[in-house]
């Protein structure tokens, strides 16, 4: 399998030492796109003169579509069983995935239209592409996940996998009254119980708002997210 990172963070390379990670940037993807369309000589001229920015401006969404096009190419290439993309944050995810449909509406011909229609085809086919929503067991992230889910299904027609609820404090409630009132042990237990109660309530609210199964990732104690913690999380992958 292949993991694709879009915003240049080195984090994934460190977390996944044994997995192939590829970084895709819009400008590199656009250059490659021009190359493969027999425009390599022009591509260089465009890049050196800065006109490449103007090209991107001339057709909004082109930077998103060349990135999605590159992902589609990796998916079609047959080298990987699974291509996993670390997508943009909630606010930008919809614009990003909507770029194919928007371009189909505005561009009437040419290679960009072909590209957009092939990407739209991939996004709409659940055997080729699905979207994993990741959220936290807190009010605002749950609200955002629900809104994003509806927008993705209604406006883009992409299939959603179970939703991942991250950093859930999964333990059972602690018997706080076993320590005297006002003691550090009692106060810490009450705090922990409040957090656990809130997480459970938010998961329940999410289930009520969004008819998708939930995958729970437990909170990793110690706040150090390293390769070992990722292994722990992967082992604890728990579907309800």
């Amino acid at each position, binding site marked *: 399998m292949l993991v694709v990172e879009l915003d240049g963070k080195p984090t994934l390379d460190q977390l996944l030492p044994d997995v192939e990670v590829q970084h895709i940037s819009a400008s590199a993807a656009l250059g490659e796109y021009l190359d493969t369309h027999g425009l390599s000589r022009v591509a260089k001229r465009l890049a050196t003169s800065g006109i490449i920015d103007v090209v991107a401006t001339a057709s909004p969404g082109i930077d998103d579509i060349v990135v999605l096009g590159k992902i589609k190419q990796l998916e079609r290439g047959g080298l990987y069983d699974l291509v996993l993309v670390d997508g943009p944050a909630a606010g930008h995810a919809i614009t990003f995935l909507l770029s194919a449909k928007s371009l189909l509406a505005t561009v009437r011909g040419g290679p960009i239209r072909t590209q957009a229609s092939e990407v739209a085809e991939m996004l709409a086919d659940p055997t080729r592409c699905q979207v994993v929503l990741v959220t936290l067991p807190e009010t605002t992230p749950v609200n955002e996940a629900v809104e994003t889910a509806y927008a993705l299904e209604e406006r883009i027609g992409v299939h959603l996998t179970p939703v991942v609820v991250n950093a859930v404090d999964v333990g059972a409630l602690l018997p706080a009254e076993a320590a005297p009132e006002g003691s550090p042990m009692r106060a810490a237990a009450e705090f922990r119980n409040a957090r656990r109660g809130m997480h459970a309530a938010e998961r329940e609210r999410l289930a009520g708002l969004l008819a998708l199964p939930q995958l729970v990732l437990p909170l990793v104690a110690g*706040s150090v997210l390293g390769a070992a913690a990722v292994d722990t999380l992967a082992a604890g992958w728990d579907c309800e």
Partner: protein
Amino acid sequence: MTAPTLDGLLGSAGVLVCCGSGGVGKTTTAAALGLEAARLGRRAVVVTIDPAKRLADALGVPGGLSNDPVQLPADGPGELWALMLDTATTFDGLVRANAADTEQAERILANRFYHNVAGSLSGTQEYMAAERLHALHADERFDLVIVDTPPTRNALDFLDAPGTLAKFINHPLFRLLMMPTRRGLRVLNVATQPILRTIGKVVGGDVLADAVAFFQAFSGMETGFRQRADEVIELLQSDTTRFVLVASPRADTIEEARFFAARLQGSDLSVSAVVVNRCTPQFGDPPTRRPRNADAALLYDNLREMRATARAERVHAAALLADPALPVDVHTTFVPTLPGDVHTMDALLQIRGLLFDTPA
């Protein structure tokens, strides 16, 4: 000179920019800063660039926020306003303000290429954010603008956006497109320019025709735009604009915070204060020995686990504070995680109390 405290910044800054990665409580911090500014007697407006509805949620604004500032209830002699940046509406306003006449403005606003640029182009959002910042700074209703940036690595692109636009306007291709054309010859003109023919091949001829029409309609407005961009750059680099770095004490978010600090340093700017949110609270020392009672032992283990987590968090935060991209002795506030969720005005007041030692 000692580093300014958060109170000091709220008293002296004209613009406060909150930056940091996602999930660190940046929006909550921006909202709490706004509340405290109002308590201190300032007329503050909190602007969110993030299209997600976090600020509306945090402030408990029913129906969400719009592009026009709305006043919110706040205690104290000052005022608190909030708005969510609408890129397209802001761009429309800018076109209207700079157009020679209504006819020119309408021609631009009706252009399909313009719609795409104003509505969905990344980069336009950053530019409009900087533009709006400038407009709010100049607005007499407010004396402090607090900005909540989006949770992406590109969040600080608005520092460069006005400069990028100025460069774009000076581009030879732009000038080529602005050459006077006779009606009817426009398409021919496009087809005869090899470079335009190439661009047309890539993006499609009709899109290019729209673009050419847009640039021609834009003619005469570039001086106004460029001057405005220069003013925006000046404001961002002035002493009244200060940056608050928001982080949480986890290895990955600390790494991101250091990225932001370096990004600011790269633009000859610096972090004026650091807020570390979501710290595991500390409740004191456990008994010297693990209790024999099974229930009490569970509580003992919990307290020890939380202390270990808090210690690890301090180590991460220390790595940030020691980063050479941050000023030495930068004012830092640690805010503990609350037992409940922060999405009501009461919880927000509690956060303000933790940030400033004011009664919740």
